[in-house]
């Protein structure tokens, strides 16, 4: 049974709710959450998740800023970050990869695509 931990970061309650449902019904991953980039960086330090799934447009600290902060820090640099956002424009995708993210997915989320990607990273 998997005990892999995923940190889900999104200021949208709807996004957190639907992702929680997908994970609880289709996987054994342990899901923890944060509502903005600042909280994500703090939680990632404290809880060392196996993967971070993060929105871009958020208050206090954006997903791109948080990703850069995580990648600069030796303790969190190796944690894969997947950006999951409504921003599908090429400029955002490029900025996403430049910030150090491992992958980039757009909303509305496709369950199968998301779960396949997580499986590829978490080796489950």
């Amino acid at each position, binding site marked *: 049974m998997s005990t892999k931990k995923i940190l889900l970061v999104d200021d*949208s*309650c*709807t*996004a957190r*709710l*639907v992702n929680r*449902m*997908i994970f609880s*019904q289709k996987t054994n991953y342990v899901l923890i959450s944060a509502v903005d980039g600042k909280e994500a960086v703090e939680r990632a330090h404290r809880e060392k998740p196996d993967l971070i799934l993060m929105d871009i447009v958020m208050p206090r600290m954006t997903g791109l800023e948080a990703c850069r902060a995580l990648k600069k820090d030796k303790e969190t640099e190796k944690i894969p970050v997947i950006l999951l956002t*409504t921003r*599908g*424009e090429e400029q955002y995708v490029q900025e996403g990869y430049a910030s150090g993210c491992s992958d980039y997915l*757009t*909303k*509305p989320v496709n*369950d199968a695509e998301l779960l396949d990607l997580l499986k590829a990273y978490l080796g489950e």
Partner: protein
Amino acid sequence: MIGTGNGSRPPAKQESRIELADGNLSPLTGTEELRLRVQQLSLREQIERNHFLLMRLNAANARLIQSLEQVDVFDAIAEIIANLIGSEEIAVFDYHPAEQNFSLAWSSGVEAEALQPFLRGAGMLGHAVELGLSQFRERQPETTLLPFEKNLTACVILKSSREIVGVVAIFGLLPQKSNLEWADFELLKFLETYGAVAIKFQRLQGKQVAP
């Protein structure tokens, strides 16, 4: 020796059978077996689709309920549309039954000045209200549009029982989304009723709080 564990022979392949009307079992032909497999796959797909939709309806419902306490129904509607359907250009118009017209109540991602009041029956939004049915651009390409409706994708009538509360206008879709899909129509149907109920609730709450 490396083998099957207990040394017994592996079981013979079981023959597929189908139950006849008289209750007896008859062996399946290759074609029948193939047909059953196709049926199974189709049913599985239907179940997966329902599951996909139910999870989204459940999330949308939970978010609307939460909005009743936080008094942010419009934000909740926008979040549902952005995250589950795929548009960040949204406007909500209030309906004024005495004047038979609509005025902007809230918008996000669209220039509010352009969203002028309009009469019941005018444009795609007014026409939708006249019909009492939500309208979708891809299904109504011939409708005469109001100036601000050029980029309109959908208008969702907010109605509680038979009372029209307002209308949600969804303009452009996110770049990665080319058109509305079956689950989107179901979610919008959900918003028709439950979005209206949430807005009515919020208005009543506002009246209670007001001096």
